[in-house]
């Protein structure tokens, strides 16, 4: 009995991490059909937000709030990643709707840029970047409006961006003369996020050790799931998102601002990635490369669950979680002690973490051969061109 409970709890624990990480992707990929390879990096931004909040609260006047820093980090991470996602949508994705392979490449590029950004951002770098952006966006506004209507106006814009970029680099180089400004904020090293004391221990229920950090993630996942469900089913904007998912041109005819709907879905999806980023700081390492550890699993969950269905994401995440725990820990042998010897040795062979991962992947690929659209297929726009 205990071993069954133990299996269920650990499967749920692994599954909830997968689910939380994949939830944002389910919105972005499932509802909008955008293959967002930068999803892992949006999680990373959430994790870095946690790090910043932790450091701000460690000392100073707000020290009393330190034990709760992770709760404060959740909404902030949602905002930071959500805004980053919004910028990404406005600048890149918007131009690529209906072209999934191009979005794949473009967002892959964005993920590399984000990784490098956290590695090299310093005060000097930041000042230069802000100056370049302000000038680049601001300069054309000072030019006579008539010029911008000319045939050569793209050249003018290019020129002003080049000028802005040059000035930005110059200012960054100038500021970089001072050692204090040149020091990177995070550097390429991994950073240390330490869970608050109350999330470091564990409690024991019916003989099963439940780490409080895991319980926290399960609760956070459940809350996020309920919130997303409510948002999509009950709120005005959620209903609009679903309408656009089902039929874009008809929704547009009926006066739904599809531009805003796209931006909002992307913001929500990216924000959820940020929340997942906060959660994984309790379990793993935080560094510029951490996104890559999660992206494959996220896509695996969404594809297996069926694109466009939240229920599919939930079932797929829990299924993969329980399966990889049962296989990886070899607890099948405990649950069924009188197993035939042939099966027993087969299971022992796969009862290592590496082999369990291989087996789970093989099972998923095999499953998709029979149900290519996943567990819960849904008709919808895959952003029809």
């Amino acid at each position, binding site marked *: 009995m205990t071993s069954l409970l133990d299996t269920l709890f650990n499967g749920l624990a692994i599954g909830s991490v997968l689910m939380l990480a994949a939830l944002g992707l389910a919105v972005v990929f499932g509802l909008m059909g955008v293959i967002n390879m930068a999803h892992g990096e949006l999680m990373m931004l959430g994790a870095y937000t946690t790090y910043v909040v932790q450091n701000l609260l460690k000392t100073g006047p707000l020290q009393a709030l330190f034990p709760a820093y992770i709760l404060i980090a959740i909404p902030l991470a949602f905002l930071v990643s959500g805004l980053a996602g919004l910028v990404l949508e406005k600048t890149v994705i918007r131009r690529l709707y209906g072209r999934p392979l191009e979005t794949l490449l473009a967002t892959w590029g964005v993920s590399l840029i984000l990784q490098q950004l956290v590695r090299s951002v310093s005060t000097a770098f930041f000042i230069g970047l802000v100056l370049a952006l302000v000038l680049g966006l601001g300069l054309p506004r000072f030019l006579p409006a008539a010029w911008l209507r000319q045939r050569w106006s793209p050249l003018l814009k290019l020129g002003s961006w080049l000028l802005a970029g040059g000035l930005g680099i110059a200012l960054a180089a100038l500021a970089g003369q001072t050692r204090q400004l040149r020091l990177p904020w995070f550097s390429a090293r991994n950073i240390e996020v330490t869970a608050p004391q109350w999330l470091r221990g564990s409690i024991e229920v019916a003989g099963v050790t439940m780490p409080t950090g895991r319980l926290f993630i399960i609760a956070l996942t459940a809350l996020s799931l309920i919130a997303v469900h409510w948002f999509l089913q009950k709120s005005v904007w959620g209903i609009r998102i679903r309408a656009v998912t089902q039929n874009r041109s008809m929704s547009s005819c009926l006066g739904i601002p599809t531009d805003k709907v796209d931006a909002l879905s992307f913001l929500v999806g990216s924000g959820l990635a940020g929340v997942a980023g906060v959660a994984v700081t309790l379990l793993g390492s935080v560094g510029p490369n951490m996104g890559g550890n999660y992206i494959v699993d996220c896509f695996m969950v969404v594809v297996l669950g069926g694109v466009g269905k939240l229920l599919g994401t939930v079932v797929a995440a829990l299924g993969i979680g329980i399966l990889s*725990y049962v296989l990886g820990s070899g607890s099948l042998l405990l649950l069924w002690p009188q197993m035939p010897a042939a099966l027993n040795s087969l299971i022992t062979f796969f009862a290592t*973490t590496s082999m369990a*991962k291989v087996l789970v992947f093989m099972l998923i690929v095999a499953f998709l051969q029979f149900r290519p659209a996943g567990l819960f297929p849904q008709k919808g726009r895959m952003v029809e061109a």
Partner: protein
Amino acid sequence: MKSLAQNQPTRRLIGSLSALGLTLTLASCGGGGGGTGADKAASTDTGGAGGFDGEVKVGILHSRSGTMAISENTVAEAELMAIDEINAAGGVKVDGKKLKMVPVEEDGASDWPTFAEKSKKLIDQDKVAVVFGGWTSASRKAMLPVYEAKDAFLYYPIQYEGQECSKNIFYTGATPNQQAEPAVSWLLKNKGKDFFLVGSDYVYPRTANTIMKEQLKAQGGKLVGEDYLPLGNTEVAPIIAKIKQALPKGGVIVNTLNGDSNVAFFKQMKAAGITPANGYAIMSFSIAEEEIAAIGPEYLEGTYAAWNYFQSLDTPASKKFTTDFKAKYGDKRVTNDPAEAAYSMVYLWKLGAEKANSVDDNKVRESLVGVSFDAPQGKITVQPNHHIEKLVLIGEVQKDGMFKILENKGMVKPVAWNQFVPETKGYTCDWTQKRPDAGKYKL
């Protein structure tokens, strides 16, 4: 009709996605990481001392980007520091001339084939006299054929699994008998007989664990379980379940995980109650001062590590090394065993070249055996098997992220071919012998 037409692209998309997923998994298994290196260390400055009669180019080949960059940056920085010091003291004195050491830096990018490719470039294009480089055994295995084919030389600063002895590599990190074996003996004597082995899934942990299993058999220990985690994997729950099953009341855990997985491992172990306070003795072979800072001392306090150098080693040479390193790269930085080995090997090469009176790599190779250097860990000497006699230390992690040295086993001679493993028992390596099989022959 409509649903069919719509299904088609979905299907194709999912097909290409699963293919992509597979590629990505493979790529991450290979440990590849995107991106380019940040915070490059300031390259050596000319020193202004002047008066050099020429230059000698040396290659520095470490991962300055990707997953391994975190660890390898420190090693590269230690090598650059040694080069700067040598230049400030008048360079390499060969044949009555003072040669300035000029480092040529390349980025291995945490990608093993890149290490081989950059090695070729350093040897053929830059014509360096020697290459200091590598970290993971996988990168060394990838570079080895290049150096053997071109009869060039690689100086490799990291503790490794042994079972290799190339004429073209100088191994300045520990062999298993200078790290893993004394650590296991110590654990058997002081901490218990039941061992669980956890490692990353690649050549070093697997070979090291093979050796430890043989040693446990020979010395009366008992292996209760072992598991391997793919590099970069952060889900440790199945392994923790196995540890709890195998060692319900405490025992010894030997950890050869590398890189990011360590963070996940220790965070989740602590949450599950597998801690020193509950009777678990945890010994790690890839966690030094640098990694403690990244994981957080809270999670590691009370666990053990075996190395040949700790920053807390209380000797004047060790203190000077740490002070100099901090002065050059910042107050918050720490020194560790790989940095110490990397720093020392640059000096060893310089002393070898001066003894040979030439920077020709084959002459340096012959003269280097027997050369001694007063390293931060003490006086180290190059042995005939191209390894170093090293100090063996066992330490316990303290609250401040430093090690308290529990045991100092003194200088230990390196053994390349392991004597616990039946296949290599009785074999030895001696490059001063003029025999074709000097790399591996039976005594």
